[in-house]
Every structure is written in structure tokens, then in C-alpha cells.
């Protein structure tokens, strides 16, 4: 079944087509949600809210461009709204200053997707959102500033701090793996 048939079936309100659409995209979209959420239960909430919006706004899809991209934007926006709701909480937690760490991206290849997602989920809230938007989704700092209602400079600084934090973690992993290999 092609995408157009799937969308038209959902527009008719067919439960069967809705299920198929969910099954086709839920895996990728859940991974997107996991990157933005603080926990897997938050991610599940975002996924559910996102799909409610997808089915509710399906008639607004113009059949131009990628349908997956359209769903992804809805998921990202839903995740951001969720993030903004929890912002106060995040501000209470505060950010501690992070030490500089050497960049060692090779460690990334040794980790599975689930481990990388888990690593990202451990990023402090503000860093995580900016890192996801800029580094993975490809948004510009101006767009991020507009979306989150922050200064561009804040977006840049949070991205930098996120990278440092990730590099520090990856460095630690790399070191541990090296030690393990050495002892074995």
C-alpha cells in the first residue's frame, strides 16, 4: 500500500489504515521523541500526542514533500511544547558548568542506537533540545531561538555545552573500553 492510499484511508476514518500508518512511522517517531524527552514515559506521551495531532491534521497535508518529514515536524513541535511546559522545572534544576573534554567521536560508532539515545536522554534538558534541533534535525540557531523563545547566543552556547558533555561521556566510554581490552 502506498503512502497516498494510506493517507486517504486515514482521512476516511478507517481504523485499519490508521493502525497501518502508526505502525509504519511510530518506530522512527518514537526515536525522535526519545531524543527530546527526559524519560521513555515522556517520550511515549509525546508520541501519543503527536499522533493525535497527525490524525487530526491529516487533511492539512498537501501531498507535497515528504510525508515522513511532515510527521517528524509535528513530533518535534509536540516535543518542544512538552519541553516548554517543563521548562520551569528545568530552570529549577539549573545547569552546572561542564569541564572541557577532548573530542573523541570514534566512540560513537561503538555504541548502539539505543545506547546513543540513552546518552542523549541524559543530557541536561536545555542542551538536549538544542542539540537535537541543531545537530540532528538541522535547524539553524535563528530557528531554534524563534522556536524556543531564547537568544541565538544562548542556543549556540547550549549546543557547545552539549557537545562538550557528550564528548566527555564518549571519552569516558572509550577509556573504559580501552582498559577492558587491555586487561583481557
Amino acid at each position, binding site marked *: 500500500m502506498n503512502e497516498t492510499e494510506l493517507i486517504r484511508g486515514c482521512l476516511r476514518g478507517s481504523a485499519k489504515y490508521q493502525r497501518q500508518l502508526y505502525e509504519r512511522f511510530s518506530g*522512527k517517531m518514537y526515536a525522535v521523541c526519545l531524543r527530546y524527552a527526559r524519560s521513555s514515559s515522556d517520550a511515549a506521551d509525546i508520541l501519543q500526542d503527536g499522533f493525535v495531532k497527525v490524525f487530526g491534521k491529516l487533511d492539512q497535508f498537501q501531498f507535497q514533500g515528504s510525508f515522513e518529514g511532515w510527521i517528524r515536524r509535528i513530533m518535534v513541535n509536540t516535543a518542544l511544547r512538552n519541553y516548554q511546559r517543563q521548562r520551569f522545572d528545568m530552570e529549577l534544576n539549573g545547569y552546572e558548568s561542564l569541564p572541557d573534554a577532548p573530542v573523541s567521536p570514534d566512540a560513537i560508532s561503538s555504541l548502539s542506537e539505543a545506547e546513543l539515545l540513552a546518552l542523549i536522554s541524559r543530557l541536561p534538558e536545555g542542551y538536549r533540545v538544542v542539540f537535537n534541533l541543531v545537530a540532528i534535525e538541522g535547524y539553524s540557531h535563528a530557528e531554534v531561538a524563534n522556536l524556543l523563545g531564547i537568544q541565538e547566543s544562548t542556543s549556540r552556547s547550549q549546543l557547545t555545552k552539549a557537545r562538550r558533555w557528550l564528548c566527555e561521556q564518549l571519552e569516558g566510554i572509550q577509556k573504559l573500553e580501552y582498559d577492558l581490552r587491555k586487561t583481557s
Partner: protein
Amino acid sequence: MEQPNHIDQAFQNRLYNAEQEPPAFVWDNLEAILRRKRRRLLFWWFVGSGLMLGGILYGLNHTSQSDTLAQNSVEPSIAQRSNDVPQSKSGVSSDLSSTVPDSDRSQNQNKITNDLSKNAQPEAAVQSITNAPDNTASREINPIVLDKSGIQEDIKSAAVLPEVQKTESEALQQVASFDQLKSKLNPVNILEVEEDQELPHVKIIRPRKKKEKNACYDFEEHPNVWFVDAYAGPMLPVRTLSTSNSEDLNYMGLRESTEKTGLGFNAGFRASMLINRHFLLRSGLHYEQHTEVFEYADPNFVEYTVKVRSELINGTWVTITDTIGVEYGENYQKTYNRFGRLDIPLLAGIEWRSGQTGISAQAGGSLNLLFWKRGTILNPQGEPQVFTPSGTLAQDVFKPRVGASLQGSVQWFYHIKPRLRVYAEPYFRYSLSPFSLNSHPIKTEYSFVGIQLGLTKILD
């Protein structure tokens, strides 16, 4: 755009198209939300259809009323014209108030007769006479109307002519007899005269249709007609649980003590064919929905609260589960179980009428098209478990469709307009097969008692 550095690039390559299996409950929740939306949509569809049907019925009815009004409006125009005829010109308005010499009477007799036939409106005549002076000079009456044969005889027989030459007061009294005359004139075409012409152009005014004054349809004239019904009303399910296995009696007792049937509703559309004035064939779409309340308190309920987290220990991600709380107590659960059915009834009946009211009795079968259900009941192990077909770990309790049922009803109706009835129709419906699956230990059977309150439009 920010140029991605190699860390960004590495993460993007690995994660942009990453997939993770979402928890199963997300789809269950989502499906419940979508189902609610669909049901809301269905509800508004029913409301919209009902309003549309009501609008159509009103429109049809209004159109037939407008036709009657349009026909009625012809007569005042004639009356108006007769009033507007100038004194200098001959016509009934002035002629009635004139004193006609005896010698002219006989020769003008036929002419007057014709004039009267044109102005056969008592109101117009009264107006003309009232406005006329008492001592108006004698005038010659010109023939202005040519009429169809038969009119003169009618008028003569009504004995109007001799009275025309009398005084105004006498003439006024006599005008009342125009009512009788009017009824005689109605069946034929009346000719209307252009004012300025001696031999006028004539315009045919269509005879007025007989107005249905009584709010009752003429079934003698139309013995075979179609009815369209739209109805809704309350409904009460009568549920029977039974089991053939004595071991399941305890479970059946638990079911009976935890489930209560509640009120429901019915709604639908129906088309009926009246044959030979009295016999009916009816079919349509009939929807019924009812609610049952499931209430259960588990006295031995224990709830554990756990915290699951991942930690990087010695380079390996480890999932750690901590039990952070245990609660003992009674778990109370209340669920509104809902059952909806869409059926096609096929009924035969007979109708008796008396004036504007009447009754009909009908009976027949009904075939189930759709049976949806949602809720929770105890499973044979005595634990609450959903039976919604799409639910996670749902137990199989009910059939996908519930087959045929027998139905009988008696309708009382009243004609509020000739082609529009209101009615109340109590009905009883008995399902021929149980709603539960044969594999389920408890047999669940239903009958329904309800009342349909509706409108019937007669189409001919």
C-alpha cells in the same frame, strides 16, 4: 545554518533515521482517543442528518403550503380590480349601486349575470356597494364579461338577479348569498376582464385546488403512498445470564453482582410503503446503544511502585529496577461498558385511521449490521479484564455481530398537517441468538424495550 561539526555529523548519521519500538500502550491509548473522535463524528453525523431530514420535510411541507397560498392570492387581485374600476366605466361595482329602469331590466339581465359571475367575491361586492352614493343616476350596464356556459344558470338559480335593482341595504343583505354562489363558481374557469376594453382580452385563472382544510391526508384518493420516518427515543435492555455448567455458577453470580444494565437510546430512519390504504411494509436503519455499569472492588490489591533507570557501569549500560513503594488496600474500579448495534428492520404491518389520528401495528425481523462494544468485566478467574476487541490482552466475550432478532411494535400517530404526522411507537425486540461467544462460559442474551418518538412525512 550552523555548520555541523564531526560530533554533530556522527550523531546525525546514527540517529536521524533511528527506530525504536514504542510501548504497546501508546497505540491502545491512541486508538481509544481516535475511537472517541469517530464516535463524536458519528453522533454529529446523526444530528446533521436528522436536521437535514427535518429541513427537507419542512421544505416539502412549506412548498405545498406556498402552492395553496399562491392560489389564494388570485382572488384578492380580482376583488381589487373590481374596486378599481372607475365610475365612468361600466362594471359591477358601480352597477350594483345604480337604479336600473324597469324597461332596461330584462335586456340587461344577462349582462348583469355575466358581471356577477366575474365579480363573484362577496367582499368586493360589499366594498363597491358601500362606497356608492345612494342616489346615483341610472346607468347603462355594459357587457364586460364573457363567461362559460353554465354560469348563468347557476346564478339564476341562486336568485340574485332580481335583487340587484333594490336599494343598497337590501342589496347588502343579499350579498351574503354570494357565499353559496362562490362554491358553485369555483369548479369552472373564471374570466377576468381588462378594464379599458369593451370586448376584453381575457385571462384564464386556474381553478383553485381544493384546500385540505382538515389536517388529514386523503387516503381514499391515494391508497398507495410512501412514508418516511425519523425517530429517536429511550430504550431499556433486558439482560439474561445463564450457564449450562454448574461450576460456572459462582462466576455468573460475580458477573451479576458487578454489572448493572442501564438506560439506552434508539434512533433511526425508516421508509414505509402503504399498500391499499391499510397495509404497511417498513424498512430502514435502526441504531440502539445502551450502557452497563461495571463496579468492582478488589479487597486484596497490592500496588508496587518501581523506578527503572539506566546507568553506565564499567562501560556497560545497566538497567536498574528499584522498588520504591508497596501499597496494600482495596482497589475500586468503575467502568461504563457500552454496547451499540446498527440493524436493518424488515417489518410488515397494518394501519387504522380515524380522523387525524390512528394506530398501526407492525412486526417482523431485524438483521444486525454492526455490533460494537467497549468495557471491562470480570474474567472467569474473577479478575477485571477488558473485552474491547482491540484492547490489549482483551478477553473474547462477545460476538462480532449478533445476527437476527424479532421485533414488534404498536404506533399511535396524529396528523399535525395533512402530510405530516407525529408518532409514538413502543417496541419490543428479542435477539434470537446470544450476544456472547459460544466459547464463553456465561451465555448473555438480550431483549430490548423502547419507544420511538418520531415524525412521518407522507410522500405521494
